[in-house]
């Protein structure tokens, strides 16, 4: 039995390793392509690792296009929209969970509908509205769009988290004399930290990866976001500047990786582990 268990463990570990390799392979390919000379990229017998390493693609990206400017634009739009989304989602989710009303179902329905609505259908009216208030070609306008766009799903996520926090915890705090605000900030917020981390990461990555709104709303080249800048390495009929595109993609991945490293511990914390006895 013990042997079987060891065998199962080995098989499971083997599968996990295979899965990790499967997940890492595209990243490895992009990093390798970013370091290969162009002729090696176009070689008919490609290798995974570069046979000759060059940093020409990185220097072409850094010198040629506005990669850092566009990355900065993405960072500020992503950061601000994430903060706003989380700040709006926490009290909204709390109110939806704790204050039962007939509006709740309508809100949940709205959240679902908003997720299946094609972007292209809302683009033109949205553009006209934003232009009316002077927010096209503006990072503020794009930030607000991202807030509106990711809020429903973040609210949905947060709703689930808040709902899983036992009401008894709040009742205990109320019996001890805590006000509603105190309950939210002292009891709920610490327990919601993993949820806030997950939601914030979702909101940030959504805005970081978003292309269409950024493409259509931002007219000035200096306001382009990273995804729009990356698309400029592709040409017609399936052509692309593969080396520079790979180098730019590697650079583009760095902020997301850093963010994930910082937020990693939030995910590993159990949501309400040990909150209640019995």
């Amino acid at each position, binding site marked *: 039995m013990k042997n079987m268990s060891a065998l199962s463990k080995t098989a499971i570990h083997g599968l996990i390793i295979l899965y990790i390799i499967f997940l890492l392979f595209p990243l490895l390919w992009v990093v390798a392509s970013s370091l290969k000379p162009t*002729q090696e990229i176009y070689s008919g017998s490609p290798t995974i690792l570069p046979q000759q390493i060059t940093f020409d693609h990185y220097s072409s990206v850094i010198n*040629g296009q506005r990669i850092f400017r566009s990355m900065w634009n993405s960072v500020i739009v992503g950061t*601000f929209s994430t903060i706003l989304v989380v700040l709006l989602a926490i009290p909204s989710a709390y109110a939806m969970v704790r204050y039962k009303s007939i509006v709740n179902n309508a809100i949940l329905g709205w959240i679902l509908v908003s997720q299946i609505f094609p972007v292209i259908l809302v683009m033109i009216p949205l553009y*006209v509205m934003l232009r009316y208030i002077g927010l096209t070609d503006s990072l*503020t306008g794009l930030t607000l769009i991202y807030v509106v766009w990711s809020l429903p799903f973040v609210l949905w996520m947060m709703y689930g988290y808040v709902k899983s926090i036992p009401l008894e915890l709040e009742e205990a705090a109320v019996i001890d004399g805590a006000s509603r605000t105190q309950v939210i900030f002292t009891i709920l917020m610490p327990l919601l930290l993993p949820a806030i981390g997950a939601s914030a990461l979702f909101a940030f990555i959504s805005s970081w990866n978003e292309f*269409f709104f950024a493409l259509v709303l931002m007219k000035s*080249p*200096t306001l382009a976001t990273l995804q729009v800048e990356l698309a400029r390495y592709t040409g*017609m*009929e399936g052509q692309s500047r593969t080396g520079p595109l790979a180098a730019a993609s590697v650079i583009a991945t760095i902020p997301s990786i850093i963010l994930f490293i910082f937020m990693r511990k939030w995910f590993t914390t159990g949501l309400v582990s040990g909150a209640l006895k019995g």
Partner: protein
Amino acid sequence: MKRSTVIFLSLFIAGALVFWAVRKNDVQQKSGLRFVSLAWQERAIATNKSIVNEWNAAHPDMQVEYIQGTWDSAHDYLVTAFETGDVPDIFHYESSIIIDYAMRGYLTDLSPYISVEMKKDILDVAWATVTRPNGEVGGVPFLIESLVVLYNKSLLEKEGIVPPTRQHPWTWDDLRTAAQTLTKDTNGDGVIDQYGAGIGLRNSANIIMNTSISFGGSFFKKDGDHFVVKVNDEEKKLLQTIVDMLYKDKSVAPASIGETGAGMIPGFFSGRYAMLVGIGSWGRQQLVENAPKDFRWGVMPLLKAQTQTYGASTQTLSVPKKSKRAKEAMMFIDFILSSKNTARLALNDWMIPARKSCLSMPEFNDTLGGWDITCSSVATLGVGSWVGAPGYVEWKSRVANPVLQELFAGRISVEDAANRIEHESNNVLSRYKKRGEVW
């Protein structure tokens, strides 16, 4: 309690600070003219920017802002701009889509602004790709996209195959014979590792449409004011030739079915395909810049079927109808598309310049890079009967490409493909007929 309050307040203050930073970064540059270019190769971008800088230096009161667009998203970007009115003043695109925009009323008719010199110097076949029957011009054509056949000199020499010349072009039968000779199992393991030809057939509508003219076909027929699609024997002959090369001769690499022309290039470098058939003339750039050092290649003249006439499509500069500065925009177009600048743009994009004066320049008659043979194809370029067909762009993506993919993947016969193309095409076109759009 204190800690949580501090966290919340910190988040709020951080948010406010970022908001302030965002507002501060909102540079609302409202300069003169906005020019959206789809140049994407490093040298082509540099050339465009350089010309814009030259214009800006000479016209301090009418500055042009260079905006780099992308081919994949240009349509969404432009249609949203047309519908909302926040348009660039000049934009770069291709003739088949320009036609559609012109019919939908998105474009300024440039005919009153075009100078006599420009009108005379640009090839008639190029003008025909953007000019409506009533004389309205949707854009100024400056680059001609033409199909070429590239070949691996070493492999042809090894088999003693003499490449065709401008005076003696190959027929499709010649190509088939050569491709069969070049298809080989070089290491004797029973598997073919060198194919005579590779054809990027993933989205093959463009290749098929432009080539069909040389077979005497064209798919689209005029029916009064409107268009219908007919797949006759001429079109079927072209389709059957490719299917036979794929499945009967097995001289076209099966990888062709799922690849674009650009995607076939690495296999061409490695000697897996001895010839690349129906690739755009831009493909030469990849060869010049990325081929292995000892790789020797050449360009063949267009293949002959009934004739050597192929359909032309062009890259264009247009002015949206909602631009308030059409006259100034046309002044800039005049500048960027002067004979000298058109030559610079064509050389750096590896495409055929649309101006006659450029074609007589030594650069475009050079054997190096295959410019001479590539540019000689303008003599046999024609205009497809589909030019001006409302719904052509949708037809290509919703009918032609999917049906042709099934045909070349061996799932349906030529006869089935012809029937499906006719039936499905006319469903699409009838929708446009109801809208009353007329070229």
